[in-house]
């Protein structure tokens, strides 16, 4: 077990990629108010594959959205890659996200009109890079991830596993320091899901990069360097490989 709150300074500790302290988030007001996050303490370290697990509606995806800077927390301190993301202006947050974050979605969210290579190149194009070098880089990355032969294929012609590999390549092409993955194996069969997780563990995690994975899929937890379990808007425990899991928490995944 590691402590729920980091004892190091999240701004100066280069190994600490994400630090959440007392993060709260609610939606709506009055009778319709829903407390999605109730004071979450969570950390993710560079070079590690951190899992967020828990039952549906426990706040995993909300926490991931807050960490990624696409949802504003209602309270608490959030430091991502040494930056107080919640204190950034909307424009700076977009720039921060574009430069430092990679996204892998459950439904891949590839642009159907673009080829695999073009999809991978989107973050580079969004940052203002020219198309030919962006495509070259995208094709090289796809090649490295074993999809070089399908670089010119449209997403509709790829299998689910291949589409998720393309999505992972898109998340990596601009060399982000934090990759957030929302249920990356949920739409895949076990074999493809295992293959995607191996890819994340072997090719995505680097000493200078943290990867956070939100998942329901208990079959892939053995890839984790740390597992934070959430319930009812809170982290209920955080374990590392080899730690024994409380039975109640096992059921919740």
């Amino acid at each position, binding site marked *: 077990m590691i402590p729920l709150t980091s004892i190091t300074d999240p701004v100066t500790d280069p190994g600490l990629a994400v630090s959440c302290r007392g993060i709260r988030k609610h939606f709506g007001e009055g009778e319709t108010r829903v407390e999605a996050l109730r004071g979450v303490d969570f950390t993710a370290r560079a070079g590690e594959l951190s899992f967020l697990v828990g039952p549906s509606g426990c706040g995993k*995806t*909300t926490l*991931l*959205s807050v960490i*990624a800077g*696409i*949802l504003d927390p209602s309270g608490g301190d959030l430091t991502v890659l040494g930056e107080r993301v919640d204190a950034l202006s909307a*424009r700076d947050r*977009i*720039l921060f*996200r*574009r*430069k430092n*974050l990679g*996204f892998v*979605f*459950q*439904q891949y*969210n590839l*642009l*159907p*009109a*673009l080829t695999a290579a*073009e999809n991978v190149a*989107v*973050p580079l*194009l*969004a*940052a203002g890079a020219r*198309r030919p070098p962006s495509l070259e880089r995208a094709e090289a990355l796809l090649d490295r991830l074993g999809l070089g032969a399908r670089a010119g294929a449209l997403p509709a012609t790829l299998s689910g596993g291949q589409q998720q590999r393309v999505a992972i390549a*898109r998340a990596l092409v601009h060399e982000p320091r934090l990759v957030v993955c*929302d*249920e990356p194996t*949920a*739409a895949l069969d076990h074999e493809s899901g295992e293959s995607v997780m191996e890819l994340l563990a072997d090719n995505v995690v680097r000493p200078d990069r943290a990867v956070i994975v939100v998942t329901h899929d208990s079959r892939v937890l053995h890839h984790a360097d740390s597992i934070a379990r959430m319930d009812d808007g809170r982290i209920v425990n955080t374990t590392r490989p080899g730690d024994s899991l409380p039975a109640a928490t096992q059921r919740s995944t």
Partner: protein
Amino acid sequence: MNYVALRMLTGDRAKYFGLVFAIAFCTFLLENQTSIFANILKRTGNQILDVTDAEVWVMDPKTEYFEQTKALKDTDVARVRGVPGVEWAVRLFKGGPVARTSEGKFAASVLIGIDDATLAGAPRKMLLGSWERLREPNSVVIDQAGYVLLFPGEPLTLGRALEMNDHRVTIVGISDVPAPFLSLPVMHARYSEAIQFLGRERTQLSFIIARPAPGITPAALTARIVSRTGLRARTTFEFMWDCIRYYLRNTGIPVNFGITIAVALVVGTVVAGQTFYLFTVENLKQFGALKAIGVSNGRLTGMILLQALTAGTLGFTLGTGMAATFFEITLRQLQTRGIVLMWQCVGLTGASILLVVIVASVLSIRRVLVLEPASVFRA
């Protein structure tokens, strides 16, 4: 990202062609209906514009438009000639006799009687024969459409006879004059003969056409004629617009065409606007993913505008091509001659399409701007 925007636009061929053709159809409808409307109204003044010799038209104060005239007195010509600044002024008769062929075919026609001495007002564009042959006794020049109407299926030939008000007249020329409002034969004869071909009213001087002396504008001359003679005087273009306004005020043409144009505008714009709006809404998930990745709202707005303007430009160009082809075909028909695609209608339609595209874009952009990027995390 412009490349990405264009690929998103063209990626789904069915949607893309549907959008472009919706805009093209809207463009075609608008250009077609507005051009036909404008050209039909323009026809009401064609016989005025066709008299290129004169710049000023003088008429009875009660005469409102070309087709319906109150006769002037013969002495009015002299009065107009006496107005300072008039270089010349001659009589012009306009009547509507019935012309018959020896085969029994007949048609009401527009008969223009031009000054015997000068032949001012004669048709200048001749297909066969010469307008100068009008000096021959009992001669007329008939327009091509009128000839075809009276002698259907027969080649254009000079020397054929017509009967008007018990007068036998000979066709000495076939002209190519602009079509009148009603598709009637247009004939020209000398004034002294034309009044005989109609011969029902005591006074038959319909108009006096005049030209200002050098250094005097037509508008200045009309003012002088009005003040000195009490007659109504208009420049050529003023009189043409008088005719158009008369038809707009007093006929069902503007209402009927207005309804058609309004329906074309509403149907076309709603279809085109809704198609584009739905196109964006169906791509919201993709826009959400781009937002999450770090594409700014400004860039997304630019992408949607680029998509809208591209589809709009293609649709407008295609629709204008369709309209141009339509008018190119109808232009060659005698009945619809002179009805052309007017640049003003193309401009008006272009502005309408631009407005539709911008409104549809604004509605679409609004959906994208309020889109929560976190929505892409929801399956």
